[in-house]
């Protein structure tokens, strides 16, 4: 007779993230949002490609970018995409503790990525005097990469809020879609980074 939506192995639907109308709406809503994000990032990429050689006598991409740090950042973010897949695997098996553990690893990897990015920007600003105002290339670079970093920051805040807010509740049909939509968002951040390391850093090295 209760209205308890807690999941247990007997009552758990196969896809808890889409078992309710609200969950399905969240699912479609997030995909709609990601479609829009694609256009947003395309504008930044287009601007960057157009302006990447307009250095106004300041540092150029070949002077600035080192591949080692970018490779480390790429591996960290790719791995965090996999750890969130593991988290969703445990969500579907109704194992809340393991889900929280893998989400915590995801958050840790996200923070490591962010730390490296902050180090990178500081290095450019202090050692090269390369800032947002240095050149059109500088503006386009910091807008594109910075906006991605902003997305990572927001993602970590979102994830931590979800984890803390639901720590004592356990998994139910109300919060399962919230965890799932976060994981979609996190994968999308990785998708954008794949194009950033290719178009900005690797193509920047090729010249």
């Amino acid at each position, binding site marked *: 007779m209760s209205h308890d939506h807690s999941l247990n*192995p*007997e009552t758990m639907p*196969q896809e808890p993230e*889409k078992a309710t109308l609200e969950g399905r709406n969240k*699912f*479609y809503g997030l*995909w*709609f949002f*990601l*479609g*829009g*994000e*694609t*256009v947003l*990032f*395309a*504008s930044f*990429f*287009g*601007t960057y*490609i*157009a*302006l990447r050689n307009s250095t106004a006598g300041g540092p150029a991409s070949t002077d600035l970018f080192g*591949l080692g740090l970018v*490779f480390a950042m*790429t*591996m960290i973010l*790719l791995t965090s*995409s*996999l750890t969130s*897949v593991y988290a969703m*695997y445990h969500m*579907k*098996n109704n194992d809340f503790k393991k889900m929280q553990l893998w989400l915590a690893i995801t958050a840790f990897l996200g923070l490591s990525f962010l730390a490296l990015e902050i180090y990178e920007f500081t290095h450019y600003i202090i050692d090269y005097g390369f800032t947002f105002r240095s050149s059109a290339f500088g503006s386009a670079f910091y807008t594109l990469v910075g906006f991605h970093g902003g997305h990572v920051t927001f993602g970590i805040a979102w994830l931590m809020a979800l984890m803390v807010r639901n720590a004592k509740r356990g998994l139910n049909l109300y919060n399962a879609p919230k965890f799932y939509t976060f994981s*979609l968002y996190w*994968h*999308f951040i*990785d*998708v954008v980074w*794949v*194009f950033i*390391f*290719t*178009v900005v850093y*690797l*193509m920047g*090295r*090729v*010249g």
Partner: protein
Amino acid sequence: MTNNTNTNHVDSFEKRKKKEEMKKQLISFALMIGFTIIAFIAVAADVMEPMFVVPLILILAVVQVAFQFYYFMHMKDKDHEMPATLMYGGVWAAALTLAGLILIVWW
């Protein structure tokens, strides 16, 4: 009673299905890491013409992103027609934006 007799069977089937799915996702991850390493080596080795390296790393990126969408984000699964429509709509508008911006600069 009848319901109960089936539960275990269904559960083990579902479990196996999820395990199978996880295996596919691990393979996708290994491929994605592989593509990334190839892209970095292609650039770091500095032996190929930019004419070849740039299209190569772009193709590697597109393939890698397809794995991310279809496996990690489940776009290959049923019930994902709407997400796929929304995403391809976004990609279409993104392509037009990129083409427009590149056109006004390079022409």
